[in-house]
């Protein structure tokens, strides 16, 4: 298992459920504009290498260079049929009031064996389950069955107990009645129709959250023409996606902090046991000791940004 203090978010969902659009809209929302939460400024920026050794010009140069890394997630790429070029992984730094508060790593699971291997390797703290709103409204039981299969597989391979967030996408397509009073009726319908998913979470004691979102715009006439095609100049204003990210970070930070603390205790324990004089000639003990020290360094280094995040979250 690889641990690096990342708020790893694994995105699962059916084909055309809007996984890529959702990731792009979150990145667009937070990378190009600040989002304020309780007066604190939240931004996402490309994850940079250690910047301690860089001089001033290199810092600015790095910042310019990182723009390319984020440009690929431009939501316009969805419109211009370049969605295939959008990577399945995004590695971003979460900054609150310009202070590093952790990493956000999005991973889009397509359902290949290899993807599940990654899930096993990286210990994702959040499983973001993308559910199309229309499936909820139409009570598409087969859809939920397929999704349950993916979810259960992801939970099974995960070495940690992840928290589940249901992103109910394409909420702009919902009727006024469903949208009213902060989606009250729609959420009732979701709890009723997506029972297999929710029961699974309850049965396995997996904490979950749900949020209706639109990756494009609350008003879809600003995106699509009467023929359903994209307008020439669509007006993208992702709706409620910021709340989705807040929810995910709120859920993930305590999980990762707890995990890192445990790793630190384990490493300390290994170091204490293996560094005795009797182990001086024992190669295995020396290797254990070296690995434990290395892991301890990584864990300690990564707990700092999470501690920063905790200031704003807990």
């Amino acid at each position, binding site marked *: 298992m690889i641990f690096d203090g990342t708020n790893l978010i694994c995105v699962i969902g059916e084909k055309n459920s809007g996984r890529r659009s959702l990731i792009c809209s979150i990145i667009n929302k937070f*990378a*190009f*504009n600040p989002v304020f939460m309780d007066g604190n400024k939240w931004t996402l920026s490309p994850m940079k290498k250690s910047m301690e050794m860089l001089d001033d010009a290199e*810092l600015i140069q*790095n910042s*310019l*260079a990182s723009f390319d890394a984020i440009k690929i997630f431009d939501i316009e790429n969805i419109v211009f049929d370049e969605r295939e070029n959008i990577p399945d992984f995004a590695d971003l730094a979460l900054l609150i009031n310009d202070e590093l508060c952790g990493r956000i790593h999005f991973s889009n699971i397509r359902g290949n064996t290899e993807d599940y291997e990654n899930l096993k390797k990286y210990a994702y703290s959040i499983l973001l389950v993308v559910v199309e709103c229309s499936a909820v409204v139409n009570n598409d039981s087969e859809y939920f069955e397929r999704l349950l299969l993916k979810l259960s597989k992801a939970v099974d391979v995960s070495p940690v107990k992840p928290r589940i967030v249901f992103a109910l996408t394409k909420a702009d397509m919902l009727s006024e009645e469903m949208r009213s009073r902060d989606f009250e009726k729609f959420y009732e319908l979701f709890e009723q129709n997506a029972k297999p998913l929710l029961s699974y979470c309850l049965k396995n004691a997996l904490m979950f959250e749900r949020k209706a979102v639109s990756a494009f715009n609350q008003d879809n006439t600003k995106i699509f023409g009467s023929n359903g095609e994209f307008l020439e100049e669509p007006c993208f204003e992702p709706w409620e996606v910021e709340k989705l990210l807040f929810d995910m970070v709120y859920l993930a930070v305590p999980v990762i902090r707890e995990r890192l603390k445990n790793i630190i205790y384990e490493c300390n324990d290994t170091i204490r046991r293996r560094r005795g004089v009797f182990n001086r000639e024992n190669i295995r003990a020396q290797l254990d000791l070296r690995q434990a020290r290395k892991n301890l360094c990584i864990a300690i280094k990564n707990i700092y940004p999470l501690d920063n995040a905790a200031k704003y979250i807990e």
Partner: protein
Amino acid sequence: MEKIRISMLGGSGTGKTSFFSGVIQSMIVNPIVVGNEKTRSTIMLRAKGVKQSSSYFLDDDKSDDLVQAMSNNALLANYLIDGEDVGFGMGTTDSIEFLFDLLINNIPCCEIIIADYAGELIDDPNNEAMANNLTQLCDNIAESDALIIMADSVIISKHLGNNNLIQRETGARIINMIFPTIRRVIEKRKKPLTTLVALTKSDSPQISEGMTKSNFAAISDVMYNNIYASTFSSMHRDVDSWGIIPVSAVGKGNVDEYNYFVANANIQQENIDTAIVFSIASSIAKILSDKDMIISQLTRQYRRIVPIGSRAAASREKLAKEIEEVKSQKTALEDCRSAIAQMNDVFANKINNMHRSNIDEIDAVIKK
């Protein structure tokens, strides 16, 4: 002499070169006159040199030529000769720095460097053509005292309501992304930063009457709260100054909707001089406070030396000379500050969403 660096940032075609041409027209050709009969001062620039890529042409024919070219061709190129290569004025393919003396009542008080960066820096900073100069450019930006961010007001008014599109078309996205880094770098140098968003081409007939109302208040609010919200929220309230100003290199009513001059055009730059003076105001205040500190340090050193023996006397004499020199530099800058202070009302009327640091200090000068 103290140096103040102003960097112009913006994508291709946003009007950086035209803006600069306007600087020459409005501050070299016609000086700014401030104050009433009793307190009358003039503020103007005197061209000193041009640095293109890595070589400086100081006080030679080339710099004169270039400044001459800027004062005429750039305007013509941007407004009249569409697509035809007229050389320098067609836009900036390389980064150019212009060196000026700032003259207050014809007395030089500091040097002003205005840097015009190629639009590619914002459009496509990671392309191969930029690779050779990028480090140097970034180094220059890191040394800036003021940033003037160019935003094409025609594009903004055309797409008002579609913030995502405006951000993409004006290069605001990349500026929003790099600004926190620039601010952090400048913070290390313990310098205040003035940032102005210049709404260029504000003369265009393509901008509706409603948009130009109350000094472009509607556009300015969108720029402040949406398009450049990230940039503005990264500024330091206690030391930085900022604002949004509509500018024009030719003046209203002088070009038609295709950007051609109308018959009998009466070219008048609008707000360009204000933008430059506002950009240097905080830096002057900071330099003055630094000078005060140097004077007090030198005076302390001077007093510590017991005036016994020839060596002590020589040291005291040397320090006294240094103190006098700094004081004379300070006097020139104080004239500059009091001239700038008289423009406070102008700033308040022409700059939207304005925030000023050191405002109390500048007000105190006016009261004096």
